């Protein structure tokens, strides 16, 4: 799966035919660093706000009712949106650098875990229980498991993302 074929596969030819690929190819050398900077700013917002919420559920800063801290989550979602957009642009620019890269698939796996964890949190009663917690209270065990999973999954996403550089296939062969 991680072995790049001698000739580009059909999916790769398609990605290379898109507007977004052309956009990356047409820009000067500064587009990439600018997108990377946005990606790093986005990840900081995500990790900062969602991390604080998760840590509160796990028991840090107990004087804060988690429901009030949850109001910071939209900032984390905005960070995620920035990263989804810049991420898709990265992929469109150099699709084979990601597709034939084990780190990319690990990152995707951890993102899927984080996503399913979000779904479990909001669709189960865990969210309502946490929202109802007053200052000073300890979260139910299930909510703590969800918070720890969230923290661990996003940290893993970040590490796999940073490792992409080191496991990509050779350029232009």
């Amino acid at each position, binding site marked *: 799966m991680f072995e790049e074929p001698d000739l580009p596969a059909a999916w790769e030819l398609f990605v290379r035919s898109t507007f977004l690929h052309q956009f990356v190819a047409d820009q000067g*050398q500064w587009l*990439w*660093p600018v997108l*990377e*900077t946005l990606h*790093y*700013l986005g*990840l*900081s*917002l*995500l*990790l*900062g*706000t969602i*991390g*604080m919420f998760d*840590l509160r559920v796990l028991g*840090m*800063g*107990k*004087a*804060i*009712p988690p429901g*009030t*801290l*949850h*109001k*910071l989550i*939209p*900032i984390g979602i905005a960070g995620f949106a920035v990263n989804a957009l810049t991420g898709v642009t990265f992929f469109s620019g150099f699709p084979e650098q990601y597709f034939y890269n084990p780190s990319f698939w690990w990152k995707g796996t951890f993102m899927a875990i984080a996503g399913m964890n979000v779904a479990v949190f909001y669709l189960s009663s865990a969210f309502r229980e946490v929202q109802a917690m007053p*200052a000073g209270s300890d979260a139910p065990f299930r909510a703590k498991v969800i918070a720890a999973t969230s923290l661990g999954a996003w*940290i893993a996403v*970040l*590490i796999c993302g*940073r*490792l992409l*550089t*080191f496991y990509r296939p050779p350029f232009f062969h």
Partner: protein
Amino acid sequence: MWVRGPSLLVFPLIVSAHTLGMGFLAGTSAGIDFRILGVAKRVPLTALEKFYPIMWAALVVNFISGTLLLIGYPWKAVTNPVFYVKLSCIALGVFLVVKIRRQVLNQPNLDDDKIRHRAKLLAWASLGCWAGAILAGRLLAYTYTWLEVGVRGGF
């Protein structure tokens, strides 16, 4: 040369730790800044102090990982003016983190308009410092002129 070392292990781990520390330091500080700026208004300000150990731990991780990266490629950083911009942003950012704790989180008179205005100014300055540090840090990979003595780099 242990840093550059068996390059598929040590170096990637150091940069991963550095990025993780960046996310937690800048991210947590930004979360506190947004609270001061009016998002999540009902979060008690004093209690946010409890998240400071996260930022200090992240700062320690980044100081150590950053020093190792510097040892690995000393010429690359010290010959690049952007490196000093990054260090200045971080120094100011950390200074503001301390200042915000003293003058905002532990401030009993936040109802005073003047004090509140000042608090918001500090929060914006803090966000600016972290954005500047991250921008400068990322640009380090693109703006260096010497990778090591005698080896040119950059575009």
